[in-house]
């Protein structure tokens, strides 16, 4: 019961903190003080208290987009185990629902973007659609590896399975897996080198340009949903990359939170030291990630 409560509290409260830490890390690299750690929370509350501007081109789909996207993301959050604890809901094949819920979220984000009739937003949606197609197989190669290792079809078992031993017995496979997953973690969450979450109007933008016309509470939903997606996929990644478990409940939660903070700092560092890729390079890197995870799968299956 306590675990369930902690799970829900972390899912609801922690995602914006990740953004705060990333921002702070980037500021440190740039020699600035940077916004406070809690700035994303302030932003969200501010947006919820703002009025909205709706384009006269839009229909109900534009308004439904952020709502369904956030609802799907929160539902996916109930399927991911955090730390050493199983998720609130787990069953055979939940990883497929997990993957497809993000598909649902993406579908409605793109529909809302196209609803504005803006060429910018169409461009962003086209890119999002293209890149997500390339990300999808990578995720499934990774799921196959995890299924095969743990012999289970449920995210909770396959991610909380003692992966430390596997690191010793099949380390090569897991290294490839972690590399592939880190690439799609950055790509799916619109991080440098794929996308820059801080600018809106450059022609190379993907996610930010899709939400150009949203304002007020709807934009708050979008920001919060994006933070939660980073948190969920980050937790997925952490399970494989840093599978340290002690068996002690509170200690495991502590380890999990520290790992997530470390992940946020790592993302901040990557964002600080890398330039954004040219658009034509992005598919190449995503395909490379697919192939890395495919190799990982071959090593496990042989």
């Amino acid at each position, binding site marked *: 019961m306590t675990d369930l409560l902690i799970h829900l509290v972390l899912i609801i409260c922690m995602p914006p903190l990740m953004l705060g830490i990333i921002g702070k890390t980037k500021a440190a690299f740039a020699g600035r003080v940077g916004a406070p750690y809690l700035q994303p929370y302030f932003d969200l509350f501010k947006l919820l*208290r*703002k*009025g*909205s*501007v*709706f*384009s*006269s*081109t839009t*229909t109900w*789909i534009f308004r439904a987009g952020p*709502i*369904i996207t*956030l*609802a799907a993301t929160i*539902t996916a959050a109930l399927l991911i185990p955090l730390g050493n604890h199983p998720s609130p*809901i787990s*069953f*055979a*094949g*939940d990883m*497929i*629902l997990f993957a*497809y*819920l993000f*598909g*649902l979220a*993406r*579908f409605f984000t*793109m529909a809302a973007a*196209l*609803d504005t*009739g*803006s060429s*910018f*937003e*169409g*461009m962003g*949606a*086209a890119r999002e*659609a*293209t890149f997500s*197609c390339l*990300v*999808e*197989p*990578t*995720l499934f*190669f990774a*799921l*196959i590896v995890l*299924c095969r290792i743990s012999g289970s*079809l449920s995210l909770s078992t396959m991610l909380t399975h003692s992966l430390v031993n596997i690191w010793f017995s099949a380390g090569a496979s897991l290294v490839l897996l972690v590399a592939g997953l880190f690439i799609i973690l950055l790509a799916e969450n619109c991080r440098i080198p794929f996308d820059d979450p801080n600018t809106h*109007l450059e022609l190379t933008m993907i996610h930010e340009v899709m939400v150009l*016309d949203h304002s*007020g509470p709807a934009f708050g*939903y979008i920001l919060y949903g994006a933070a939660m997606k980073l948190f969920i996929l980050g937790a997925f990644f952490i399970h494989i990359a840093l599978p340290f478990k002690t068996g002690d409940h509170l200690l495991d939660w502590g380890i999990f939170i520290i790992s997530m903070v470390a992940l946020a700092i790592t993302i901040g560092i990557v964002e600080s030291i890398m330039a954004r890729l040219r658009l034509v390079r992005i*598919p190449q890197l995503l395909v490379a990630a697919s192939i890395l995870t*495919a190799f990982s799968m071959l090593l496990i*299956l042989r």
Partner: protein
Amino acid sequence: MAAQVMLTPVTLIILGIFLAACSGVPGLFLQRGTGQGQKIATFSLLAGALSASIGAIQVIRTNLTEIYTSGWRLPFGAGELGVDPLSALFLLVIFLVATCAAVYALGYWPAAKNPCTERRLSLFFGLLTASLALLVLARDAITFLMAWEVMAISCYFAMTVESQRTEVRDAGTLYMVATHTATLALFAMFALLQAQTGSFSFPTAHSLNSQTSVAAAIFITACIGFGLKGGLMPLHIWLPSAHASAPSHVSALMSGVLIKTGIYGMIRLLTFFQLPPLWWGIFLLIAGCISAVMGVAFALGQHDLKRLLAYHSIENVGIITIGLGVALIGQATGNIPVTILGIAGSLLHVVNHALFKSLLFLGAGSVIHATGTREIDSLGGLARSMPYTAFYFLLGAAAICGLPPLNGFVSEYLIYLGLFGGITGGTGADIFFLALAAPALALVGGLAVACFIKVYGATFLGHPKTKSPLAAAEGAWQMLAPMGVLTVFCIGIGLVPQLLADFLLAPIAVFAPGQVIGSRGFLTLAPLAWISVLAAVLIALTVLLTGLFLLRCRNMPSHQSVTWDCGYLQTTSRIQYTASSFAEMLVKLLSGVLRPRYQQPQLKAIFSGPASFASHLPEALLDLVIAPFFRSIDERFSLLRRVQHGQLHLYIFYVFATLVALLVWSI
């Protein structure tokens, strides 16, 4: 006593087929253009569908398996008809889609506006429905082939009603060639089958040895014959143009049901054999993956709304075949859960695809009816003028992409479970194929989302790009109601899939007998109830967030304005991202197989004049491989043309000469 005899499920089904077959006949004797004939046809079909559906449901509920042999003799043995839950499942799909399409036709193809073609369409539509139903009841080769041919020919006449247009005639000819090639393959298949069993009636289930070379030949000929009908790549060449040229409700029936006869035939054939060899499953798995991935890839580059949907049929037949392949691999490796999940996913996807694809074709028909164009790039902004159609189409699009909480997800989920189950438990060579099929299916899901967002965005969202969508208005209730019914089924299966378990188990048992697990066992294998729970969570969260959103919006000022245009003053609707530009990146990434063609302007002067750009995605296989191949054959064998001169009396002489030669040879 008499009443009991009358109301057996089988008599209900036969009555339904009879009513469907004769539905168009009264119209032939009534005055043209009054619409009475069309109304009678629709009511007759509705009554037939009701009767047959009740019968089919009873067959499934009571797990009835019966075979009836006709008293009169056909040239190659007695005609045999039979029912079992597998046939009943297909019957339900056939009659549901046919009813929806027939009601839709009242608004879409009204007799008052199409006095010349309506009678022909109603007649052949009814015949097509009846022959489809008869096909799944046939239990011997001759009845099967007769139903198969009636189906093929009535479909030809139904799809070519607009035969004044060249493209329709060409599509019809291509369809005719393809369907007769399929029939040829089936002749070979049934001849081989007869060689093994000694009779033309279908062998008893699971009686044939599958390890012989004859069995392999039967399997391959079946793959060609049924694959051609089902539209499996690379045998799909007839499908896009045929679906695009037919009236939309006929396209719905073709895509929803007709191509599934290929799947039905395959499943029925597989039930004849004992334990299939592993390579059959792997073969089907690979064929399914190729169809699914390439189907959706070709769909991405299409500009024609109905052609695009037709390519998605190829994709979905691929997904169904993947499920079938998984089931066969499960049988060959003795993995019962994998068999059951694979066939369950495959059968459920047959049902689901029939639902959402006919919904989408009817939606596309409404768009064409309202705007007069199939070009996606000339549409736009229809969500305002056609809100109901837009809503139905959105749900259909989300369902075909396999997104939860709609029906497409449930069947893909079952297939994934089969794939992953085989991978975790397996040891042999098959796991590599299963392990590659899962990411392929995921890729298909991603590409389908891209493709349907493209269609939906370009058709229903944004501004109208030309004048044609400006005057668009919502269709009549006859057009909206069938779409509503199909949507309800799509949502229902997505929300409470566990109720289907009982319904699917009987047909599954036909395919995999002796592996009966009961609905509780099935729900342990595939915990569908959890999908309901999460769908409920998703809906509850959506309602909650909507409430919060509306609350905030009510308290805060809300303005209407234009879409942010970056300060550019003279925006036009042509500035929007079109469907072609949306798909351009993906099409370029896949250009190695898709072979897109571009007509680019040649810029010569510094200030060049007006220029135009066009992109086109041809049917690569037909244009680059098959057509050149047959053209070269045509050139080489032109001498043989002399024998084929069109003089009937000499043709009869050929038959006589052949008979004499055969007689001499037999002596």
